[in-house]
């Protein structure tokens, strides 16, 4: 088994490499060279990924403390982790995983066995968060065939299930640990949690003898900041080695000094979607198409997010294998938009644009509203507290015509196959294609998802504004930070510090 080294090694200027950044971060007890302090937003409220799906938990723990049978690499392909290989039956319903016999848990270097896998999956099925249970729902039975072989029988073939097993659903827990996973960690990864001050920081320490490759850093502290400004200030003040995500690109110029900072820019899985209520006024396809033509997407990206991020034409970030450039489908064309609006017989009823109060959403909303008014659409904008009130009004009551929010879950194209979802988009072809993609071979999955994404885009089911950029700031001596976000993990195993 081989751990993949992530992309994103950033070339350095000689001046930066000269080590002028003498500001060692505070709060680190060990050797400053092999200690790392990572700034992160959204604190860890508890440590159990089965019960709480907050992104902060897998960010710190997945692949670092906890390992899965299979892992998603930086190129979005499935790689072995605890399982060295797996066989799929001809009907694609039976998966046989062969565990790496070298794999051990941190506690007492006990071998990872098939029983642990069964125990972990059963725990998720019994006590898991509803979304975790949904990911595990395709499983019919899970059995330990022998000490190092696990057989999983599915109710129906599912590619999405295997992909979800690269995340929290697929974590293998130490069934013998006897700890409360809510405040303790017992996994097989190269790091252990040695200190946790809820809300403040989480300290990981490298195991004395990791079973796989030994990562560079011995101690890693995740420090949590509820708001971006203190986090930026801490990075500027030299308290952090890595700022794991810059919340708004407007903050980037502070970090432009290459002697002190390196900026890494890639993409995330977060599509900023301008959602349409397909069951309201916008049930008329011509109006939806008019809106897509009326928005100058490049100007929007430049204005709202300082040009950082990527334009997309459908619900697929460019890192997905089924990505296809569809940005040319609806070019900025105000005349065409006006013609479509006239053809639809639009009577001047205002479109209710209800935005969550999030930096990108409110800014993009104002921009879009003014462009829609330019082509003769009436827009009534209001802003709703996020998450609670927005979820209640838009997702719970469907009381909106247009909204803007980023969808950060991987492979969320499948949401267009659910007519009860807040877009209320009901297209039988898309539903069929998504089902076939899930059930088919890997090649079929890629082909069908690509077809579905094209239909969604042509149909103007929603407008797709841009993909949020992944903006990471490090001190210039840090190596191995992944450029693109493909999983929820902030993978520490690939990181190092240049002497």
């Amino acid at each position, binding site marked *: 088994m081989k751990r993949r080294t992530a992309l994103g090694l950033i070339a350095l200027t000689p001046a930066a490499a000269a080590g002028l950044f003498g500001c060692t971060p505070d709060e680190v007890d060990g050797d400053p060279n092999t200690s790392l302090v990572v700034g992160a937003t959204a604190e860890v409220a508890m440590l159990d990924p089965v019960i709480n799906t907050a992104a902060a938990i897998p960010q710190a723990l997945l692949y670092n403390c906890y390992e899965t049978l299979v892992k998603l690499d930086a190129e979005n392909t499935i790689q072995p982790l605890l399982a060295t290989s797996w066989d799929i039956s001809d009907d694609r319903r039976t998966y046989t995983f062969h565990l790496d016999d070298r794999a051990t848990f941190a506690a007492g270097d006990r071998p990872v066995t098939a029983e642990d896998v069964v125990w972990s999956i059963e725990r998720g099925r019994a006590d898991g968060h509803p979304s975790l249970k949904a990911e595990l729902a395709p499983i019919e039975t899970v059995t330990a065939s022998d000490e190092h072989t696990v057989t999983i029988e599915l109710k129906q073939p599912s590619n999405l299930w295997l992909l979800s097993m690269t995340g929290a659903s697929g974590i293998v827990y130490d069934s013998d640990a006897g700890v409360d996973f809510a405040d303790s960690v017992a996994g097989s990864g190269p790091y252990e949690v040695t200190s946790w001050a809820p809300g403040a920081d989480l300290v990981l320490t490298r195991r004395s003898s990791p079973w796989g490759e030994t990562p560079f850093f011995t101690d890693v502290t995740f420090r949590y900041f509820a708001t971006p400004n203190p986090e930026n200030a801490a990075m500027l003040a030299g308290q952090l080695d890595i700022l794991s995500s810059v919340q708004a690109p407007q903050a980037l110029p502070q970090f432009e000094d290459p002697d002190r900072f390196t900026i890494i820019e890639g993409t995330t899985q977060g599509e900023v979607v301008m959602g349409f209520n397909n069951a309201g006024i916008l049930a008329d396809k011509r109006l939806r198409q008019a809106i897509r033509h009326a928005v100058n997407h490049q100007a929007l990206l430049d204005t709202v997010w300082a040009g950082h991020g990527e334009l997309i034409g459908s619900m697929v970030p460019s890192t997905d294998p089924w990505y296809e450039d569809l940005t040319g489908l609806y070019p900025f064309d105000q005349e065409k938009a006006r013609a479509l609006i006239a053809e639809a017989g639009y009577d001047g009823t205002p479109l209710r644009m209800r935005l969550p109060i999030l930096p990108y959403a409110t800014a993009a909303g104002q921009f879009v509203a003014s462009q829609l008014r330019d082509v003769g659409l009436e827009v009534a904008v209001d802003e709703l507290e996020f998450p609670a009130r927005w979820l209640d009004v838009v997702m719970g009551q469907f009381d909106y015509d247009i909204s803007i929010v980023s969808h950060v879950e991987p492979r*969320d194209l499948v949401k267009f196959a659910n007519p009860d979802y807040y877009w209320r988009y009901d297209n039988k072809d898309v539903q069929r294609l998504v089902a076939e993609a899930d059930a088919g071979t890997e090649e079929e999955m890629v082909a069908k998802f690509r077809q579905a994404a094209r239909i969604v885009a042509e149909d103007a089911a929603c407008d797709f504004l841009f993909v949020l950029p992944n903006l990471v700031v490090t001190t210039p001596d840090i190596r191995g930070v992944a450029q693109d976000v493909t999983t929820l993990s902030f993978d520490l195993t690939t990181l190092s510090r240049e002497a």
Partner: protein
Amino acid sequence: MTVVVAVAKRAAIFVVSLWVASVLVFLACSALPGDVAQVILGIGADPASVDRLRTEFGLDRPLIIRYGEWVGGLLTGDLGDSYLTRRPIGPDLAPRIGVTVSLVVCSMILAMVMALLFGMHAALRRRHLDGFLTSAGSQIGLAVPAFWAGILLVVVFAVGLRWFPAGGHVPLSRDPLGWAHHMVLPVVSLTIVQSAVLTRYVRSAFIEVLADDHIRTARAIGWRQFPALMRHGLRNVAVQVVTVLGLQLASLLVGAIVIEQVFALQGLGTRLLDAVAQRDLLVVQGIVMLLVLAVLVINFLVDLAYLAIDPRLRTPGGTR
């Protein structure tokens, strides 16, 4: 006897206030739009699983039953479990109380010391330029918002000079020096406004006392001004200052919520804001009740302090 009655009366007011607060807090939280089940399931949720989770949490039961359950828990010291983490709220809040309390107590003490020094100076030297400047300085301090002071201090002392960290907290028990190092900037930013407010009150209280007959008498029999004030004035000033102090402590708790945000301190305020956003209502109710309790305890102590400071209040028919 009078003292006992007075204390008992105050205690009864204390209990009734607490009960009224619990009803108001509970009703206000129940009236908030949006619910925790939806927040937990997030953007990917379908309506059926939201309903299932709401039932699982018992949020579909009548208000009165949920109120009874909550207050019953409070009486036994149990704040309940967080909906989001499914963990008991009490142990989750304990370390955060430490953060907020150290912030508030340090600021209060520092503000008190500064106010006494500057207030007395401004009162005694009120007809001189230096006294006038002290007084003017406190006016300016009043006008400075704490969060703005905090941001300025970070820019100058953390990002520029790098004397102090830009934020974060180290528990006192883990590393006292680190704790103090991290507390300097937040405490100073909170103290600026508080000391300015208190300085104004101390100044006017001293000016009033200076004109009193007993001070004039003391001066007449040969006491110098400063010792006379210390011996005969301070106690009279104390009654007024303690009143203001009680009120200011409540505003300090509120100010701490803002300062916690500026300095990324994981105190009660930060937790409260998170919990409100996530509609983790039991956490919101728990923290607000703690704050109410703190304010009531402070007021209770202030009332007791009057009795200690002013002997006239301890006798029947005594007035202040």
